[in-house]
């Protein structure tokens, strides 16, 4: 049973969590619109060559050959990672002039998975941050402030989730006498938008809650990976303590084969080279994705010795990394074809209306809303027997 004071408390929680996060959430929702279609947009402005027209069952080239193509362009640089696209038969080979400087100096060469032909020699990530999509991504994820920005926007997302929960609690008392979907359009603009705010908010509740919460989890990806590195890896890395990053590496194709033998029925999605900032100084960390709709989103890490190419360990996937991996598709909306992306766009637009109308309700008629809450409080006090001092 909601009492008068708790209605008021929840109202204050809803008001303040919303007020603090709304402007940031509006920016996040707006920049999220092009990001839903980042794949299509990047394709449209792609300066590289398209992948070769080959039958779907054309065999992949050896990863060694693919990496050699990238190395031929930058003979003095290190390979940082290999990422195999899950949409198109292409591979990104990450390169760094200096180990551990991927953010500042890294760049990637895109190579056809079957022909090993170079498709695009990409610009440095640092430069890409100021392309249109780079700016959209930065405004959506870290406001150009790196980890601090990620944690800040993550906190804003958390406030958004609290605003959603408190909004649901308030929905009950507000809708006590109203049929679902009532929009009192004729009486006043404020009343109409209050009803629309409630309607749009309650209908998109689960979607906004899921996208909000998975957004927060995505913002925590850097600390979560660091946690995994510092808890799971030391056990495996102990015998390698104090040795430098090896320069003569085992074949990357051999590392991939070793990993796929350790976890059959999976395919390679990502290989972090020895020295990669999110990897190990001594191992290839081979991430393998499954082949069912769900497991294709879940990657499992296998550590392969960087020098011998032999299996070191199949690392355990802690629950928080699984949560992070499952949070990606549920946040991006990229797991159900173009119709799902369009639905994501429309639901995002509805959320913008909920945020905007919430802001409007606060600015336009603060007094009227406060009076309505006072009325609700009074009604509750009348409905529940008062315990007065004798």
């Amino acid at each position, binding site marked *: 049973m909601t009492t008068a004071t708790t209605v008021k408390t929840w109202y204050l929680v809803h008001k303040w969590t919303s007020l603090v996060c709304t402007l940031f959430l509006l920016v996040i929702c707006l920049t999220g619109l092009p990001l839903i279609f980042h794949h299509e947009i990047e394709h449209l402005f792609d300066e590289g060559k398209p992948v070769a027209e080959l039958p779907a069952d054309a065999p992949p080239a050896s990863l060694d050959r693919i990496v050699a193509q990238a190395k031929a362009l930058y003979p003095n640089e290190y390979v940082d990672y290999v990422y195999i696209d899950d949409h198109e038969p292409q591979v990104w080979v990450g390169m760094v002039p200096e180990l551990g400087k991927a953010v500042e100096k890294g760049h990637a060469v895109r190579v056809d998975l079957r022909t090993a032909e170079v498709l695009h020699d990409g610009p440095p990530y640092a430069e890409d941050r100021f392309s249109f999509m780079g700016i959209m991504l930065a405004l959506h994820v870290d406001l150009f402030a790196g980890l601090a920005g990620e944690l800040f926007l993550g906190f804003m997302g958390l406030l958004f989730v609290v605003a959603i929960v408190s909004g*649901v609690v308030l*929905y*009950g008392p507000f*809708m*006590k006498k109203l*049929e*679902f*979907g*009532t*929009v*009192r*359009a*004729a009486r006043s603009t404020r009343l109409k938008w209050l009803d*629309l705010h409630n*309607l*749009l908010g*309650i*209908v*998109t*509740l*689960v*979607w906004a809650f*899921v996208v909000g919460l998975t957004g927060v989890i995505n913002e925590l990806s850097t600390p979560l990976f660091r946690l995994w590195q510092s808890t799971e890896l030391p056990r495996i890395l102990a015998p390698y303590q104090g040795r430098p990053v090896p320069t003569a590496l085992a074949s990357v194709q051999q590392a991939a084969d070793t990993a796929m033998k350790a976890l059959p029925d999976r395919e390679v999605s990502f290989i972090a080279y020895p020295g990669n900032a999110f990897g190990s100084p001594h191992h290839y960390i081979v991430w393998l994705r499954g082949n069912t*709709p*769900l497991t294709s*989103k879940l990657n499992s890490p296998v550590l392969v010795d960087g020098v011998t190419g032999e299996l070191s360990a199949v690392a355990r996937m802690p629950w928080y990394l699984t949560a992070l991996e499952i949070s990606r*598709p*549920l946040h991006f909306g990229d*797991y*159900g*074809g173009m*119709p*799902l992306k369009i*639905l994501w766009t*429309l*639901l995002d637009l*509805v959320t913008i209306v909920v945020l905007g109308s919430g802001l409007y309700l606060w600015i336009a008629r603060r007094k009227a809303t406060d009076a309505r809450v006072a009325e609700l409080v009074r009604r509750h006090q009348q409905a529940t027997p008062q315990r007065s001092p004798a």
Partner: protein
Amino acid sequence: MTPRQRFWFIWGMPIALGVLSVFGLLAALLGTGAWHWASWVSLSILLLVIARYWWFPSPR
């Protein structure tokens, strides 16, 4: 209205739409083909509900 009727008067539709949303979000994640269609249809219903009450408010 009894307390139970009152509860369902307020929360009936929100719960139904919430269940529909969860189904819609998971269907495309766990299946392909027909499950994708099930996901698209169930999430579209949310938007249709909004359109129905926004554009055709019941006279009051």
